[in-house]
């Protein structure tokens, strides 16, 4: 267990750094995120503007910090929705089996049949754009995948002797699912959640890039890309910075998910 796990440590370092910047933005950013320095538009990095300025003369570094907050908020809200709903559906379907399983899983297949972004667009069309609705849309998108992972865990574990033993003791089905099976499925759900987090960051960026996600003036990395792309040749910094932030964040979460999987595989032998 205590073997070195570069995936996990590097992933945690990257995500931790970004999280630190996002948290810091709550109390401090080098410049006000909406303040326009008209005489400093589209500048490169300098000691005053660490990552340059955008076409309105706003400080890119401050906006990247604040955009991280948005990314973490959308990611964690979406993953929370996906985890709760997905695990609930997967647990019931997997444990009950038979027609209940069929019914739930066919609905999930139906959801999976739409490309994720189309699904998200549908939710946004109904609920309207905005930061929370973006998170909701992305959360709904992740439900089918997470429910499948939970379901397979529940199916695999429900036939194990310790679950049978719980039944012979007289433990009620809900308690068996929550106390006996769920703790043994958590590890695969953690892996799924970190993958879903990375996917949520990407989706948020995508939706915001299309102008359907997070709305101005809230800074979002995807939105920053959209606004800066027209000025890429004159000043690549305002495009590169949010792009790099998205890349690092996604990479970090994928590394965490791989690392968690590796770490849990070792312990998995005890199961």
């Amino acid at each position, binding site marked *: 267990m205590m073997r070195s796990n570069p995936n996990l440590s590097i992933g945690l370092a990257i995500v931790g750094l970004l999280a630190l910047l996002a948290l810091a933005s709550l109390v401090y950013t080098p410049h006000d995120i909406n303040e326009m320095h008209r005489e400093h538009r589209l500048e490169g990095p300098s000691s005053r503007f660490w990552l340059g300025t955008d076409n309105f003369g706003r400080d890119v570094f401050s906006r990247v910090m604040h955009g991280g907050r948005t990314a973490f908020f959308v990611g964690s809200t979406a993953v929370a929705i996906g985890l709760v709903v997905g695990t609930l559906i997967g647990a019931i379907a997997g444990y009950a089996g038979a027609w209940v399983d069929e019914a739930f899983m066919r609905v999930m297949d139906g959801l999976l049949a739409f490309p994720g972004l189309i699904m998200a667009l549908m939710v946004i069309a109904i609920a309207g754009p905005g930061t929370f609705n973006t998170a909701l849309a992305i959360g709904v998108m992740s439900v089918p995948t997470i429910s499948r992972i939970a379901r397979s865990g529940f199916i695999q574990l429900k036939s194990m002797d310790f679950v*049978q*033993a*719980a039944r012979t*003791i007289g433990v009620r089905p809900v308690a068996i699912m929550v106390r006996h099976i769920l*703790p043994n499925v958590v590890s695969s759900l953690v892996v799924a959640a970190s993958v879903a987090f990375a996917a949520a960051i990407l989706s948020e960026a995508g939706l915001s890039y299309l102008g359907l996600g997070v709305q101005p003036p809230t800074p979002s990395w995807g939105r920053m890309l959209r606004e800066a792309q027209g000025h890429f040749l004159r000043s690549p910094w305002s495009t590169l910075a949010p792009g790099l932030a998205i890349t690092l964040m996604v990479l970090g979460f994928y590394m965490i998910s791989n690392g968690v999987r590796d770490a849990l595989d070792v312990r998995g032998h005890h199961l």
Partner: protein
Amino acid sequence: MSGPALLEVSGLTKTFPVKTGLLQRAKGELQAVTDVSFGLDRGRTLGVVGESGSGKSTLAKCIVRLYPPTSGRIGFRGADIARMGEGMLRARVREHIQMIFQDPYSSLNPRHTLYSIVEEPLRVHRRLPAEERGYLVDAVLERVGLDPVLRTRRPHEFSGGQRQRIAIARALVLNPDLVIADEPVSALDVSIQAQILTLMQDLQEELGLAYIFISHDLSVVRAIADTVIVLYLGRVMEVAPADRLFACYAHPYTQALLSAVPMVRTDEEERPPRIILAGDQPDAANPPAGCVFHTRCPYARNRCRNEVPSVRQIADQTEGHRIACHFPLSG
């Protein structure tokens, strides 16, 4: 033998649908247990022996009602539990019938502590206020030979024998009437087997437990059982008091099983003729006609191939020696 037996099983049958193909349509049936009947009194031990695939575990799981039997009666403390609903089972039956599983590495939840595993039955059945349960759990742990100091440890920190002791403690903490042990020692080292068997016997004497002891190991069954049922392909071949079965078995299958037990030769004990069964057990989804054992029986005749032998009383007045064979071996 006064009053009704603790457990009275009659005509117990369990079939599983055999599903194949894309649409999972039931193609046939697999009769895992067919028409099994026996009784068991308080404080006694019934041994169930047979090869793997003979339906021993299915029989056990029907009696603890992990499976609903397809037909037949399971009389337990005067009530038929064969068709009882899950809610009723939890309220009336579960706490009185406990099970010990074969593999102590999978029968204990890897995420739970020793204490939480053994305390759970008390919690589920609301026995004792929470703060008093600790004393009972400690007492039971000590009784099965585990140090209560270890109560916060998780299963992977224990050895196989210790784990089986944990499983026994969990089964006994509710003070049940009947404990079904499905191959409880076959996953353990021989030296540990003896310890666990002795522990189970001692506990039986102290607590008046009835055991159904399932094993493929005849020497183990011989050590612990009062009565023995021999199963083959889900059907009863022979039932007899343990000492009688080992001395004057009458079924060719029992003979074959006994002859396969390795033993140290002693002068008083005559070794049964060595019989090696050819081939495998037939497919349970497609059992042979007539006596199911005829395909491997060294004494099979025409009648065995056509006519199913019924389970009948044999020999003198010796109580409880029953056999399903047209041509029993004579003493």
